[in-house]
């Protein structure tokens, strides 16, 4: 767009080579190439071509393609731009994120001082031994967590987002009345229904969706053929180990039996020996040191996932994943390229990567239905977090960032349900305050699990969190009649309290493709 196509392409290629050079995959391919020299059909005269065709047939070229595909997901770089600009181009947002991070850290530090608990301390040997023995059943522990409180709750974060202002934005004139209806005052570009229809064309009412069209309403013969076809395609995709195809396929929903493999393929979350080793190292770190943050994780799991009908069985898994995750500095490596820095801090020489907030464990809980091997579960969660979930609690101008999602939700409602929006404002209710907690958790804990997984299929398939904002608006559209009757905040909340019976895809399809324009 801004540079000559050819120049941009060669720049992109150079950057990708730069990033892949020295990676584990690079050394593996080099080793394979060297080993294949022993093969009889690799000849000296045609060495280059023979090695290349060997790499192709042995599947390494496909692995390299997957890695390149993954790198392409990262934003392109223009030479003059400094790294912080690539993470977040708008200066005032960088500042807001930095001051939010400081605030969170300060809160953690003051909690530490108040309670007299150090931020990190080494566990005595006896305690280490006990923890090693109890690693698979940490849920049986009943530590006294009454003194600990979450560092922040989503509603605190919402207040920060509402207060965000662009210093160069002229708000003196009533240029856009809509901006005064809603809470978000930042002029980000968000897509309206016509654009969304183009972008999400696979969700069209005429396209078959997994989870709707494989139900008993359809004649069994047709059902079998359709399901079998989808199953066949997804099997082929999994066997071929094709990331891009898996992503495309996921747009119409994954078959339950193959979802775990398809997601792992899309996220390129392997479970190779070095991944298992990395997980074991993190586990060793957990056993050695006790972090203040650990108590927060315990508390969060006890308060949220353990109380949930669907997820309480996975309590032990959640500890195993989250305790390791909070110590994983490799998570920070990824944030060099990708958007805002998550709240991180140095605690007595150890970096903790993420400070959890109330409800954080709900990002992991649904994944427990798909993966039962701790290191695989860990890898998939980590990939999901660094690609998507971190955007839900960071301040950035990214189209999948929570700020854009909030604005998109408000705009969709204002444009297509103006009467409802107006009515709610009249009774003193801001719709975003009702929908925010859903979006910040990507609906985890609010929808039934099978519906949630269908929603997350689309997040992966479209590589965007936009569907979360669309669903939030669709829920309001679905319950619009009831909401028009309410006269107070409490009754509005009651109408929207229970989403467990909702069917996600029909709601989204109707909202996107059947709304009168």
């Amino acid at each position: 767009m801004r540079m000559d196509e050819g120049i941009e392409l060669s720049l992109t290629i150079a950057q990708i080579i730069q990033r892949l050079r020295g990676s584990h995959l690079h050394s593996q391919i080099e080793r394979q190439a060297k080993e294949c020299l022993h093969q009889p059909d690799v000849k000296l005269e045609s060495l280059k071509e023979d090695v290349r065709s060997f790499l192709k047939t042995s599947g390494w070229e496909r692995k390299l393609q997957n890695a390149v595909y993954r790198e392409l997901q990262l934003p392109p770089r223009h030479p003059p731009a400094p790294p912080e600009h690539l993470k977040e181009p708008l200066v005032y947002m960088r500042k807001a994120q930095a001051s939010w991070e400081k605030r969170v850290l300060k809160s953690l530090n003051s909690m530490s001082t108040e309670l007299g608990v150090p931020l990190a301390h080494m566990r005595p040997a006896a305690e280490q031994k006990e923890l090693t023995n109890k690693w698979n059943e940490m849920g049986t522990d009943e530590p006294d967590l009454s003194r600990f409180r979450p560092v922040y709750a989503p509603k605190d974060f919402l207040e920060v987002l509402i207060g965000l202002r662009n210093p160069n934005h002229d708000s003196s004139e009533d240029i856009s009345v809509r901006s005064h209806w809603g809470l978000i005052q930042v002029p980000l570009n968000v897509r309206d229904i016509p654009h969304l229809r183009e972008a999400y064309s696979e969700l069209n009412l005429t396209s078959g969706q997994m989870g709707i069209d494989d139900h008993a309403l359809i004649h069994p013969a047709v059902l079998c053929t359709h399901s079998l076809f989808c199953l066949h395609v997804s099997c082929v995709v999994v066997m071929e180990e094709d990331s891009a195809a898996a992503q495309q396929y996921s747009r119409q929903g994954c078959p339950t039996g193959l979802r775990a493999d398809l997601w792992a393929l899309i996220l390129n979350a392997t479970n190779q020996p070095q991944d298992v080793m990395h997980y074991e190292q993190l586990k060793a770190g957990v056993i050695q040191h006790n972090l203040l943050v650990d108590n927060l994780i315990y508390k969060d799991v006890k308060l949220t996932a353990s109380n949930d009908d669907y997820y309480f069985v996975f309590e032990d898994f959640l500890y195993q994943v989250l305790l390791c995750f909070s110590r994983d500095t490799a998570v920070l490596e990824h944030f060099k390229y990708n958007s805002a820095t998550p709240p991180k801090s140095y605690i007595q020489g150890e970096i903790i990567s993420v400070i959890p907030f109330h409800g954080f464990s709900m990002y992991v809980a649904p994944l427990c239905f798909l993966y039962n091997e701790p290191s695989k579960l860990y890898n998939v969660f980590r990939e999901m977090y660094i690609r998507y979930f971190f955007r839900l609690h960071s301040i950035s101008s990214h189209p999948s960032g929570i700020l854009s999602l909030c604005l998109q939700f408000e705009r969709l409602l204002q444009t297509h349900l103006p009467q409802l929006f107006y009515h709610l404002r009249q009774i003193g209710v801001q719709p975003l305050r009702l929908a925010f907690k859903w979006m910040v958790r990507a609906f985890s804990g609010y929808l039934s699990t099978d519906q949630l997984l269908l929603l997350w299929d689309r997040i992966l398939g479209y590589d965007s969190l936009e569907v979360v904002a669309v669903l939030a608006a669709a829920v309001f559209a679905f319950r619009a009649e009831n909401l028009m009757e309410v006269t107070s905040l409490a009754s509005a909340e009651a109408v929207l309290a229970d989403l467990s019976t909702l069917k996600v895809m029909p709601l989204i399809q109707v909202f996107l493709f059947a709304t009168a324009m």
Partner: protein
Amino acid sequence: MSGTPDDTKPVNFTVKAPVYLQIGDAKADTAHSGVCVVDVNLPFGKPVNIEEVTFKNYYTAYVTVRLLRRNPKQEAPAKWCTAVRDLPLMDNPHTEGGSQDYYTIHRTQMQVEPDHVVCARLILRQPSLAWLTFSLEDIKIFPHTEPDPEKEVSDWLSDLTLTDQHPDLEGLPDPQTVSSSIQQMWALTEVMQTNQTTASIGRFDVDGCYDISLLSLT
């Protein structure tokens, strides 16, 4: 390929203060027209062949680049021409996309050959009322340099095809041992450089003679 910004330095020039065009009288309460002109005067007497122009945007929606070129061969006076017309910098003038991004305009994107340029004029447009101000920051112009001779891109695979060449060595030491001992000596000098002390070496007399191997390397 021509020289990249990493190798070449930008041209020194003076930028005049941006002029925001006004509608109506110059004084009191004029409406902003949303147009701003930035003049870039290149060094007098040294026309430049432009390779690329880089800048950082600050809420400008479109930019037009006009160049004053003087052909040295002809006696004709310098002429203005449009190199880039209404290049969009923001996806939507009312929203943030692209508002603070870094941009590069390469000579291949220009409609005319940007050679023998004496003066450049950037015309900025921001039609939206959403913003208080708009401008371009950090404008740099890079001169065109002569391209280097073609270099072969080395493929790591082609390293495998290198065959050992054994030149005829008569009475000369083996190159491998020589190079490894040179490496050792180089490493030694590096160690010494990092561990320099101000203490005087003094004389190390052992049994009445200097022995270089007794020099302390702490």
